[in-house]
């Protein structure tokens, strides 16, 4: 076990996976010489050379499209989209192409492609850099969506992503890159997809979150504990596949639930979580499931983003209301 940042965990995992399997390669904008704008791929070029660590033209569709071709040729591309906010420039290669190539080819072309994409607010970026777009990708069957919240999960989920044959959108919380530190196991972290993590146990309320919102939920839970409200925090880890039974069990145990996410409320993945609870834990509920999300506005400029991204106090207030409801 070593304590490290999210970013360091990602970098180390990429290095380990590339060393383990020479089919694994890294491509994207500024990933080679610069080592990534956030240094996630720092040092990989030196270790693995220009054929396996490749600076790409500024063309998201080409990066994803080429990854499809590389996978068809038998490689395991780990492509970096510099920001998830720019993924729309490649969306037509992700949803209708990458996600369904295995299906289209009836299994002839599985797509072991990992798309790494930093995202998330609170870091004062210019426009289009911070958007939490995860829900927009959920409707692309065949695509798996991993959203780690901790360094250990960043490693474990990235290992799992690289080592299996289906495409993965691997969303990395920008804000957590250097901020979130934690123990990372040596060797295989063994974090399967579709199995949520109980970040904190609690009895009065279950807070469901993923990625950077997990830390927000945990901090809220700490505050709630001071008010003698015992809040469990679930880290979904992957949205697709979704740990339905994990959610249902946890919510049934507390009878109350609050979903926190950074994306706008309407059509956000929180709605899917609540629908899942509706399907599997409705009769255990003691209060309506609440949501703390971004408002239905465009992602705002930096000076007002703190009003947009769910803050600890908003989560605390919603939790109080849910517990009292």
């Amino acid at each position, binding site marked *: 076990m070593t304590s490290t940042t999210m970013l360091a965990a990602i970098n180390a995992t990429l290095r380990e996976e590339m060393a383990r399997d020479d089919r694994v390669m890294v491509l994207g904008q500024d990933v080679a010489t610069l080592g990534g*704008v956030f240094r996630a791929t720092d040092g990989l070029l030196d270790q693995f050379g220009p054929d396996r660590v490749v600076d790409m033209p500024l063309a998201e569709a080409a990066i994803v499209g080429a990854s499809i071709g590389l996978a068809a040729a038998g490689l395991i591309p780990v492509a970096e989209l510099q920001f998830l906010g720019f993924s729309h420039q490649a969306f037509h290669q992700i949803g209708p192409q990458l996600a369904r190539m295995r299906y289209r080819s009836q299994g002839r072309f599985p797509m072991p492609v990992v798309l790494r994409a930093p995202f998330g607010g609170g*870091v*004062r970026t*210019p426009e289009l850099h911070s958007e939490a777009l995860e829900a927009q990708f959920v409707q692309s069957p065949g695509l798996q969506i991993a959203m780690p919240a901790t360094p250990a999960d960043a490693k474990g989920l990235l290992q799992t992503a690289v080592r299996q044959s289906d495409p993965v959108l691997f969303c990395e919380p*920008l*804000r957590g890159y*250097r*901020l*979130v530190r934690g123990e990372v196991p040596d060797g295989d972290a063994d974090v399967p997809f579709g199995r949520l993590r109980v970040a904190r146990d609690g009895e009065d309320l279950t807070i469901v979150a993923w990625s950077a919102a997990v830390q927000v939920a945990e901090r809220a839970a700490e505050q709630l504990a001071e008010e003698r409200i015992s809040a469990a925090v679930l880290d979904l880890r992957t949205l697709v596949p979704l740990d339905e039974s994990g959610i249902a069990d946890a919510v049934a145990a507390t009878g109350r639930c609050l979903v926190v996410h950074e994306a706008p409320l309407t059509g956000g993945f929180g709605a899917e979580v609540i629908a899942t609870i509706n399907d599997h834990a409705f009769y255990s509920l003691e209060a309506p499931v609440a949501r703390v999300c971004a408002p239905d506005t465009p992602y705002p400029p930096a000076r007002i983003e703190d009003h947009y991204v769910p803050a600890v106090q908003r989560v605390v207030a919603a939790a109080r209301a849910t517990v009292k409801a």
Partner: protein
Amino acid sequence: MVVGEIAEAVDLLVVGAGPGGYAAALRGAQLGRDVTLVDRDGEDGVGGVCLRVGCVPSKALIELADLRHRTAAATGAGLTGAAPAPDLAAFQRHRAVIVDRLTGGVRGLLRGAGVRVIGGTLRFTRPDQAVVEPTSGPPRFLEFRDVVIATGSRPVPLPALHHDGVVVLDSTDALALDAVPDTAAIVGAGYIGVELGTALAKLGTSVTIVEQGDRILPTLDASLARPVSRRLAELGVDVLVGATAQAYDCGALVVDQGAERLDVKAEKVIVAVGRRPNTDDLGLDRLGVTPGPGGLLPVGPDRLVRPRVAAIGDVTAGPALAHKAYAEAGIAAEALSGRRAAFDPYGIPAVVFSDPEIATVGLAADQARAEGLHVKISSIPMAANGRAATIGSPAGYAQLVAEADTGALLGVHVVGPHASELIAEGTLAIELGATAEDLAETIHPHPTIAEHLEEAARAMLGRPINSAG
């Protein structure tokens, strides 16, 4: 980082690597905290003003000046030959070695404790975030859990005298002189001005001290300052009180004293009119902290300004002394780490390395009275001390202030040789709640200056041995 403020997690952030800052960092590390220490000068800044350009170099200079002066004075006491000439250039090299050794030691301690040291200018951007602008490279954003503000203070400039570092100097420049000036004017007769003036005079400079108030060392009791005043006169230092420095013109400091205008010939003008806390450029408003009068940060006994934010040293009220910062550092680190801690000394010793030295701790008699205490006072002249006579410095006295009915010591005030060392005993006695009797019954070695405290205690009990009282 091309875009965005990708913050790094910091557990305990300490701003400023002076005595307060590095001590807080080390104590924090001892408590198991992951400590990041930010200083404008990075590793080079470790030690702060005190170790690098303040107390330590100043004491080295005073030592040199004193040595030279006493050597000259000893011609009648058993030494012959010409007094050695001062060589400040050599002194500066010597000083660099001392400072390097001391700061190097601290750097080693910090490394050993796993403290991360970052160089750059820090500003707070949010209640839990700060940005550090290194001298080169992109800014770094630190998101911290707890912070200790230990940014210290800087000399206050006088608008009338533009600091140029060549003629108009501050104390830092003065300690970096590589030649002894023939003439110097010192503006401000506080402890820095008096110390520098004394040292320069002993090195051969013709010194004039210009003070706006009516006497030197205005913040100390007049009786403490009196022997120093006399000594300055003996050293040929001109002290102009009730005088205001107006300008520097044609090699002279223009001084208004009452209705008179004087030209004080001065190769160098040293401005020592006080220090100002470094709290103005820290973005404290973003941190949610508002400095009080004079830029000082209001703190509680645990040195917290607000939860998770502590301030220590010169940025808080009280004497701007390294040992105060040092003591507060531990309190702040402990309080931020969830321990109960309070800065609660009975006395903070204060020392002026004047000639003779002044050292004081605890309450003066009038302060004690203001506290509602009944006091007894005992004051014994240094002339009664044999060791002082052998040093050739019989000026000064030792005064004890004690509670009348219990005899518990409230204040110890010493003017005389080695007063700076002596005061530690007084501090200990006060902190332990010792009485004059305790002190009188404690055997002190003879012949030492230290036994003078025993004598003062005996006098208080009405049974002096060596002094008639």
